[in-house]
């Protein structure tokens, strides 16, 4: 189902443990998770299968809640989350994009081999996500993440 899948692959010049920490700690996540000048106003994350993963994004003064859940956690290596289910495996009535996202981290000579996979219900939905700026957006925040780690945590 490759036409329903979008993939971003990068090498980040930052240690894998810190990349993981920045993805899984709300206090870090809010600093890089959306392209600037947009901001994350709140993050709620229970880092376990079926745990909540809710973010509140502020774009041009407007607040956009994105509620979902964590599906799978392999510490330091893989994080899977979705907007199809809420905490406790509660199905969402009308999902936004209707996606699952899988973040895969591996060691690399320069830092971290970083792969983000977004799976969608249909090819149209994937195309819509691409048109909304998946590669630019996820690429931009990957750069922000790398910069945040190098400037603030190393």
């Amino acid at each position, binding site marked *: *189902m490759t036409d*329903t899948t979008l993939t971003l692959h990068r090498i980040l010049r930052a240690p894998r443990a810190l990349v993981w920490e920045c993805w899984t700690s709300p206090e870090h996540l809010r600093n890089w998770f959306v392209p600037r000048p947009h901001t994350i106003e709140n993050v709620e994350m229970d880092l376990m*299968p*079926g745990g909540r993963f809710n973010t509140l994004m502020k774009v041009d003064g407007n607040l956009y809640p994105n509620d979902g859940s964590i*599906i*799978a956690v392999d510490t330091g290596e893989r994080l*899977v989350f*979705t907007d*199809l*289910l809420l905490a*406790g*495996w*509660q*199905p*969402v*009535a009308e999902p936004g994009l*209707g*996606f*699952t996202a*899988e973040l895969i981290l591996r060691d690399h000579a320069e830092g971290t081999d970083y792969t983000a996979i977004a*799976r*969608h*219900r*249909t090819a149209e939905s994937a195309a819509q996500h691409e048109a909304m700026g998946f590669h630019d957006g996820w690429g931009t925040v990957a750069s922000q993440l790398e910069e945040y780690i190098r400037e603030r945590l190393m």
Partner: protein
Amino acid sequence: MTDHNLVLHRVLKAPRHLIYACWTQPEHMVHWFMPKPHFIADVEIDLRPGGKYLSTMHIDGNVMPSVGCVLEAIPDRRFAFTNMMGEDWQPLPGIDMGFSATIDLSDAPEGTVYHVTARHQTAEIAASHEAMGFSQGWGLVATQLEAYAQSLVK
């Protein structure tokens, strides 16, 4: 969201590990999962988070394929799956009755506390699932499950 949920709570007179095995192994599933004379066949379970959970239901001569994804598989304690995703958490299109089901098992003096929670996208879907015979149907197959699991006791 309690009105989104349907719950079946029973004590089954069979060991917990056998109840778990009956829910998670295809060769056992086919013996109890549908109210007789209906039956399921072609069961495929990849017992890991993100693993496929497939079967075909045979009801009054109609064959209905059922596609899903394992969300949690905690041996002898909990099994959860959803029809909103396929293998590797691939979101599925055209879901008009999205649910997740969680089977929680714990010890009882007589055998196993069997607690099934079916969570739905909306209260209306939950109500229609109830009208389709959730409590009666799942109650019936719980009795079939108990009898079948007892037959496995050596």
